[in-house]
């Protein structure tokens, strides 16, 4: 493992931040005891033994099983829905349909457009129409096939271009659409122009432009969706669900089921992978709760793999036209971007996606002029939503391809051209006012170039063998919460009783990325205790303070800062107790290795437990709360909130690969992945996130695509939806760049999402280096590569 120190902020900037480090004279980075050291994830021992409990592993006395009947038409009126035969079947306890509730919900307050089950019409092939709770899964399955349903087809919108057209109101997929385009199926349109775009293109020396197309892709988490709902005898609803954001589900349940939030407990079960695909409040969560309400019995709903694909929320199928302008020295002058994203049947996170597809192109390069026309459309396909690197991944492929094309045209090394344009630390982007506090992208790219021997290889490898580069940036959490209120975005509570166990409560969801371990590390670091003393409880809404959950790569930055603030309160309590016991001033203590040590007289020290019991005298358990809220940021125009983040991560990847010119098959050989995560609180986990991002990004780059015919997904299984196997995954050399963010907890920022985007253009650019063709369609499957090679040969002839 390599850790490169970035030049971002000065190394000790974060210690000048508010808090105890300032009070007590900060320890230098080298003195960290827990933070910065590789720590196995706290819950991984339960996972390796099979002890970890996922939703489908749970059993309750009297539990019923649910199956869902799904639409078999992409867009159709329901002319008949008869459940009598199903209801009469022995072992069937309840049947529900759309009649159960007409309350609409959705993750964003501005697009509340999902029904628990279809009413009057279905809008995608796979939409829930009815559901059954029965004594066994087999009975439930037989019962849904006994439900009689007839459809009258409506005009289907299966291509994003169709959704742009004006249509009669009865053909609109949803009543509420973009105000600027009232008679269409356009969900959200974003039009932005800043700086002199036309002028920039006129004076430019290079103006590469192209049209791009991206297939939709799916998160492909290994745990299929599964939930258990129980409406208990105290009239409280308990929902066990592998949610990335228990809080949004909590809100949606209250709305749809018409219950006060405090009568609902959402319990996050172990999450078998999320990647954005478990962050919406879901129809199946509502359905299980409705059946639980009817039967007063626990109801389990476990989907099969196909249903999990149909539930969707993956990356939007995208069509983009982009052009960039550069001067003769390779300085970036402008970006002109026109993007249509296919949102499928629901709004989901789509308003955010519509903005992100444009505004997140304002980095990692300084961009003086920017024009963006973005449209997110509704269609009769599987709903799209947020997926790892939300909204930034597809446009990043476009811009990085164009940057490469400009380098070729201007006769510059593509890495050199990038180095000339990077945003600097402590700057604000000119139009959207994105505040870059720290960046180590320059150091990262230079290190990746050195390791990969870029200069010896680029343009010099034999035909069929190539090397390419891609760079990116990403938000460390969205600065503005989607529910507008004054509450903090993250809150962490700590309780320490006389047993010395440090219990942290948080609703930041550990979805396998290791956020529980991150919180434990930060708390252990601040109060100087061993990591195994700290226990993180992050599963239940009854006990955990609200956290906006695990999406937008926000957890380390926001929950981490909240944990640190709470731990500092405990530290002050312990310092005061040590002061009382020793007569030394409270601000002169170091907290190291379960000892509270007087700095000027290291002989004077108090053990952790002794100080704890002194601090507890007269008051019992120590309790502290810490929270985080982003600082006010951004410009003053409509949509100026999108893309704002308290900090941004940066990454620079280089990919070496081989292309078989006869088959079009692309074999990646090695990836050098430099990612600036501010400070690697847990380097083991940071590496794991980057390696995982590379793997997932390679899937989108080369093999993964959701294929449709007549609105039906053709490959909703892991045989035909091709996730890279061990054979398809090359060696990955991770280069951790530390730029020490001034506001991140101990200097940390995100690493879970931003590291995905650069790999796809790095592959594309390496294919160009290998065989001289540009791919504008993703995934870059062998047939597409081969077609491009043949087209080039024809053009030559």
């Amino acid at each position, binding site marked *: 493992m390599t850790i490169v120190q970035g030049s971002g902020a000065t190394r000790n900037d974060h210690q000048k931040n508010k808090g105890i480090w300032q009070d007590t004279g900060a320890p230098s980075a080298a003195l960290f005891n827990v933070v910065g050291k590789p720590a196995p994830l706290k819950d991984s021992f339960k996972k390796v033994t099979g002890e970890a409990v996922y939703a489908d592993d749970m059993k309750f006395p009297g539990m019923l099983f649910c199956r869902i009947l799904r639409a078999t038409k992409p867009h159709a009126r329901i002319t008949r829905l008869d459940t009598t035969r199903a209801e009469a079947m022995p072992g069937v306890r309840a049947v529900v349909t759309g009649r159960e509730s007409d309350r609409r919900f959705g993750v964003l307050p501005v697009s509340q457009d999902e029904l628990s089950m279809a009413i009057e019409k279905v809008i995608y092939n796979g939409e829930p129409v009815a559901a059954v709770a029965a004594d066994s899964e087999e009975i439930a399955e037989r019962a849904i096939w006994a439900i009689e349903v007839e459809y009258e087809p409506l005009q289907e919108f299966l291509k994003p271009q169709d959704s742009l057209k004006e249509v009669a109101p009865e053909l609109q997929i949803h009543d509420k659409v973009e105000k600027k385009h009232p008679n269409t199926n356009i969900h959200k349109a974003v039009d932005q122009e800043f700086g002199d775009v036309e002028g920039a293109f006129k004076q430019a020396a290079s103006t590469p432009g192209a049209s791009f197309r991206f297939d939709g892709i799916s998160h492909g988490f*290994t745990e299929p969706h599964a939930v258990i709902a129980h409406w208990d005898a105290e009239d409280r609803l308990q929902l066990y669900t592998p949610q990335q954001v228990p809080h949004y589900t909590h809100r949606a349940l209250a709305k749809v089921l018409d219950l006060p939030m405090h009568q609902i407990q959402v319990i996050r079960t172990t999450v*078998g*992978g999320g990647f954005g695909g478990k962050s919406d409040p879901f129809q199946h969560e509502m359905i299980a709760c409705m059946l639980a309400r009817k039967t007063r019995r626990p109801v389990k709903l476990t989907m099969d793999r196909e249903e999990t694909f149909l539930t969707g929320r993956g990356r939007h199928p995208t069509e983009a036209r982009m052009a960039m302008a550069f001067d003769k020295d390779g300085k970036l002058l402008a970006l002109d971007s026109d993007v249509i994203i296919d949102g499928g049947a629901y709004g989901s996170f789509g308003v955010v996606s519509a903005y992100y597809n444009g505004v997140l192109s304002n980095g990692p390069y300084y961009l003086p002029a920017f024009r963006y026309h973005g449209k997110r459309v509704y269609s009769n396909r599987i709903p799209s939503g947020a997926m790892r690197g939300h909204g930034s991944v597809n446009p990043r492929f476009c811009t990085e391809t164009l940057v490469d094309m400009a380098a070729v045209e201007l006769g510059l090394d593509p890495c050199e051209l990038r180095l000339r344009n990077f945003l600097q630390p402590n700057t604000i982007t000119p139009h959207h006012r994105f505040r870059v506090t720290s960046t180590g992208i320059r150091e990262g790219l230079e290190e990746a170039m050195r390791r990969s021997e870029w200069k010896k290889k680029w343009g010099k490898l034999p035909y069929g063998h190539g090397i390419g580069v891609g760079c990116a940036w990403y938000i460390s959490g969205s600065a503005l919460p989607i529910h507008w209120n004054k509450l903090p975005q993250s809150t962490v509570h700590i309780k320490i009783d006389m047993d010395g166990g440090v219990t942290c409560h948080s609703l930041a969801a550990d979805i*396998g990325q290791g956020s529980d371990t991150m919180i434990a590390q930060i708390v252990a670091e601040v109060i100087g205790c061993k990591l195994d003393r700290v226990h993180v409880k992050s599963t239940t809404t009854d006990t955990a303070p609200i956290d906006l959950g695990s999406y937008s790569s926000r957890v380390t930055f926001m929950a981490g800062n909240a944990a640190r603030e709470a731990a500092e309160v405990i530290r002050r309590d312990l310092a005061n107790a040590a002061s009382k016991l020793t007569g030394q001033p409270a601000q002169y203590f170091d907290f190291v290795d379960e000892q509270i040590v007087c700095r000027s007289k290291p002989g004077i020290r108090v053990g952790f437990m002794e100080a704890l019991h002194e601090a507890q005298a007269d008051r019992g358990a120590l309790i502290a709360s810490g929270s985080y809220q982003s600082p006010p940021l951004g410009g003053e125009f409509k949509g100026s909130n999108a893309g704002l983040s308290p900090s941004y991560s940066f990454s620079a990847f280089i990919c070496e690969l081989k292309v078989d010119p006869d088959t079009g098959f692309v074999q990646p050989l090695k990836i050098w992945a430099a990612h600036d995560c501010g400070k690697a609180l847990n380097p083991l986990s940071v*590496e794991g996130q980057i390696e995982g991002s590379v793997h997932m990004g390679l899937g989108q780059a080369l093999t993964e695509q959701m294929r449709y015919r007549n609105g039906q997904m053709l490959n909703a299984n*892991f045989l035909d939806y091709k*996730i890279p196997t*061990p*054979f398809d995954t090359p060696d990955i050399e991770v280069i951790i760049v530390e730029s020490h963010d001034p506001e991140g907890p101990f200097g940390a920022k995100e690493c879970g999402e931003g590291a995905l985007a650069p790999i796809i253009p790095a592959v594309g650019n390496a294919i160009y280096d290998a065989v001289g063709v540009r791919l504008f369609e993703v995934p870059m499957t062998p047939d597409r590569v081969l077609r491009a090679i043949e087209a080039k040969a024809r053009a030559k002839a």
Partner: protein
Amino acid sequence: MSKQILRCTVNGRAVEVACEPWHTLANVLRNELNLTGTKIGCDMGTCGCCTVHIDGRARLSCLTLALECQGARIGTIEGLNEYEMHPLQKAFAECGGSQCGFCTPGFIMKSCALLAENPDPTREEIRAALAGNLCRCTGFVKIYDAVERAAGELRQANTRAPVKAPR
């Protein structure tokens, strides 16, 4: 068709369980025997999450009908850590070979079968052995690390074992 009795050993213990003829081994392990460490990710043999040992060989329990296992010796992830954690389990946790954890039992069972056949595999051999298992979190790198570490530990443990002399 009615239920039939499956008699086999699971993790070294004799088991009798009534199964429907269409129940897979994965169903029976999880639902009847409460061994929920074995996961079902796809139910069609494409992800490897349900890998168990049948008579010492790694098999997909979602593609195996329970009643095919009459008299068989079945091993699951729970059987690896009776009384003590298996070196593979420890290594997967310590090397970061498990993130969301859903694929982990399958990977460990598959790796365990590999190491029984080949105690000192190269990275390429590990890659080949695990090619049928899907992990969406780790990019496989730390999984290979874990298998290598556990293999080393197991080899060392074996050299420390007393040499058996013929009687």
